[in-house]
């Protein structure tokens, strides 16, 4: 069902989105793969959600949109993985580096999976509890903790390697 009745986003939905935009955009910037624009991601997530729901009908619109963003990122990662595999198979001059849109010293963070970045960001910066994060990401609280713990270990290992 197209929730936007005539393709228009209702005024109250706009007001609600204005409230949600900034944290969503920040979340998208954290979890997105390199080469994308977080606003593109937020826009696509918004379109996806509005095609099926009224924003104001959602009990937790911010969580819904965050989850949609993460799903989009996951799909995009899968697409890239498939493309990389194909390029490798063809042995073409394939491994064209994608210009990063983030500062180079954040590379370690970007090597983490989007889910791991999402957990770290939501807990560390947004201040969510693990059970809340788990609900947003569709995993158990224990799994969210584990992801965060693993991510920290990866980052610490990377830091240690750099300082050697």
């Amino acid at each position, binding site marked *: *069902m197209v929730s936007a009745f*005539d393709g228009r986003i209702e005024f109250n939905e706009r007001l609600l989105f*204005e409230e949600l935009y900034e944290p969503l955009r920040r979340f998208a910037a954290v979890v997105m793969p390199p080469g*994308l624009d977080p606003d593109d991601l937020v826009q696509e997530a*918004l*379109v996806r959600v509005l095609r099926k729901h009224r924003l104001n009908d959602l009990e937790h619109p911010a969580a819904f949109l965050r989850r949609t963003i993460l799903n*989009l990122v996951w*799909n995009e990662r899968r697409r890239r993985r498939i493309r990389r595999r194909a390029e490798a198979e063809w042995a073409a001059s394939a491994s064209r580096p994608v210009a990063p849109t983030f500062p180079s010293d*954040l590379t370690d963070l970007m090597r983490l999976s989007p889910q791991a970045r999402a957990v*770290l960001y939501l807990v560390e910066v947004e201040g969510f509890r693990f059970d809340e994060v788990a609900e947003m990401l569709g995993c158990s609280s224990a799994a969210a903790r584990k992801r965060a713990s693993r991510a920290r270990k990866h980052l610490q290992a990377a830091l240690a390697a750099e300082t050697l």
Partner: protein
Amino acid sequence: MDTERNLKHDLERLANNGQPWGAQTVLDRAELELRGRAASWVLDSPRARWSRPVAVIFLSALVVGVSVGVSVLLTGTRDPLPPAVTEAPAPPTTTVSTTQPPPSLSEITPTVPVEVEELLVPAALAPDPPDVPSASLNLAELTWSRVELPESLFTEGDYLSQIVTLDSRLVLLGMGTCGDERVAAVWTSEDGYAWSRVPHDPVFHLKPLGSPQCPKVFRDVVVGGPGLVAVGQIAGPGPTHTLKGVIWTSPDGLNWSRVSPDGPLESETEQTSVYSVYRGGPGLVAIGQACELPPGQAGCERRPAIWTSQDGLTWTRIEQLGDEVASIPSWPSGTFLDTVVSNQNGFVAVGASDNGMTVWTSPDRTTWTRVPRENTSPQTCFQWLGLHLAASDSGFVATRKCNSGSSEYSTVWTSVDGRNWTSTTIGSDVVIGDIVGIGSSFLAVGSTGQVDDGSGTPANPAIWTSTDGITWVPAELDITNAGSGSISGVALGGPGLVAKGWSPEGPTIWVATP
């Protein structure tokens, strides 16, 4: 500890990476995509880094959809997301009366109940004549037909938001495109059949320099002041591009001026929204919201705001709205006023709250009293959208759109005095796009059903009339070229009445002839 601090710092840097487009730009682009312009927009956009992924994501979504379908078969669950979406209960299939059925509006005697006394308007504040005169039109005997419009009248992405009649000229306000940008647009007609678009006026092109925002557009229009008075919003300057309430006036519907750029609706430290303007009091009243912007932050706490004007050119904000309004908590957790109308009994405004429609009354547009929730209960769905309100000589009708699973319907609320309300529905698949009071009657426009293609497109444009707000009679529509879609606004003019609407092919115009 340092590592923790660095991690947080790095995550913050990641989160703040790049230049945000702003909520309005994202909304506008999302809206374009929802309206089927995704492809051209993406191709035109210089920032189309998502363009390639979009196509792939749709394919991926297809794959995910199949996976979900399998998941549905296996687990019985449907939504891959966790979001605990609130599903509204099923719509009533029969007329619902929440209290004792009120007498027909036409049967009401001048006996004034106690509650109404406070609504009586002082003689000095007697409202102006309504925009829609108590016409001799017999609404039940009108035949509606869709006007054939030249393709050149509208371009892709145009939509119509308001229709109004100034003298004999019909004026449509809406949104169009100007280059790559969406801008406010105006169309006029002398007879309802032949329409022309007013050349783009820079007064509507208020994009602040360097801002990624598009200008906001009309929210409401009314006959008053020097001719027409329209309210709307534009994007404000500064890093947060906050919204600004704006008022435009026009003597003829063709030439427009922006009122008081530095007036009470605009402030460096305050964000304003204007939702509705109404003539009555005498003079004009505009309602909306305002909120003080904490320095450096985009969010703010919204409070209801009301402005009044005698001439449409000079506006004054009412500072004291009364304790009840002043104590309204901030949106979205609280309540706001959305639409206001008046008749000889005073002013009625409807708004939304976290648990449904709220109604306010005022004898003088300054002091507002919230109608007790039990007077508008039960409200069977949680839906803030699609609020419409109309006044006739004998009462008020408010409508509110609800969702029921995959379908939508409108609930109709009727009141004689503005304080005691009774709910009903026209039909379980009826969605009302607008409602007006004409004389002692009401006219509702909207749609019934949905096209059976999963797109949610309204199936049948429809119009109803009522003399009491409770019993609604479908108007006669010439379905020869009706098409699918909906009707969303109506005004007196042309051969009788003229309505505007929407179809998958674009904006539509309807005329009613006796």
